[in-house]
């Protein structure tokens, strides 16, 4: 358990360090995630070493958004003033993303030039 914490929080801390040193415009947690993926890929960290804590965190991801969600009570007036803009923009954009992502993927998958022979079997 402690080794798991060292790895996860270690990746996060190195992410913070990279942000501080390079001034890169990325959340430290994303850099930590990419770092963890890299360590797993290189085989320096085994999945079994982090499985317990990562399963716990990923499965309960929703819980951690409750506190930032509550902060919405501070902005009720802002939301009320912009209610329809927020709703129409979010819903409209979501429909567009669903369609365009799907279309792009469908078109590119069919292209033999990009995928060679594998394209049909790999569902």
């Amino acid at each position, binding site marked *: 358990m402690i080794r798991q914490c060292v790895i996860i929080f270690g990746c996060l801390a190195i992410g913070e360090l990279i942000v501080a040193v390079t001034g890169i415009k990325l959340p430290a947690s994303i850099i930590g995630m990419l770092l963890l993926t890299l360590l797993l890929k290189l085989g320096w960290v085994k999945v079994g070493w982090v499985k317990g804590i990562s399963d716990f965190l990923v499965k309960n991801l929703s819980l951690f*958004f409750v*506190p*930032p969600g509550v902060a919405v009570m*501070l902005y009720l007036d802002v939301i009320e003033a912009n209610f329809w803009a927020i709703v129409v923009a979010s819903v*409209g954009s*979501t429909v567009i993303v669903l*369609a365009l*992502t799907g279309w792009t993927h469908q078109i590119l998958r069919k292209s033999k030039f990009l995928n060679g022979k594998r394209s049909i079997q790999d569902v």
Partner: protein
Amino acid sequence: MKSFFESEAFIVAFVFLAYYLATRLQKRTGFILLNPILVAVLIIIVFLSVFKIDYASFHEGSKLIEFFLKPAVVALGVPLYQQLEKIKKQAIPILVSQLVGCVVGIVSVVLIAKAMGASKEIIYSLAPKSVTTPIAIEVSKAIHGIPALTASVVIVVGIFGGIFGYTIMKWTHVKNPVAQGLSMGTAAHAVGTSRSMEISPSFGAMSSIGLIVNGIFTAILTPYILQLINIWIPL
């Protein structure tokens, strides 16, 4: 009594309790609109208003839980690693469609909100609305949006996508199963992914690729896309 309600221990326990009750309610009813995050947030807001506890005191305790968003995002590296082989096999279709989804998602929400007269603060808060909350919140902070507003919009977008996503794709002729799974993760993050998991684990796996890859693209590209839009139309 009020000082007890404002103690860190009580607040942490209460956040867990509210979330636990919310998950039980969803299991009991199976009603997708009763999203546990939404219900837990409502329970807490009602409690704080009834007992006149201000947000600042609540936040003293709740930030102890909120902090775990960060290691939770790091932990997403494990499923990403487990999907790497799948991503490699279809690298170009996946990466290009994710890039399209990311750019279109940001540009469309920004332009629609602008056209409807939303303020700059609101527009920036909406920009990362397609990606999973921990990433969206971090992006929102980085671009000076309102993270709390981003969080609520992300959750609502997820629920909308989760309920109507497959119907919308039927209308728009997104027929390929891989494309459908991917689109759900791209547009509706974790809620879309859990909906896809209900259909089948392979839909769920593709959906989680969409969730993660679009999350990374959005985290990297949002500030630059906003800068570019700003040159064209000042927000």
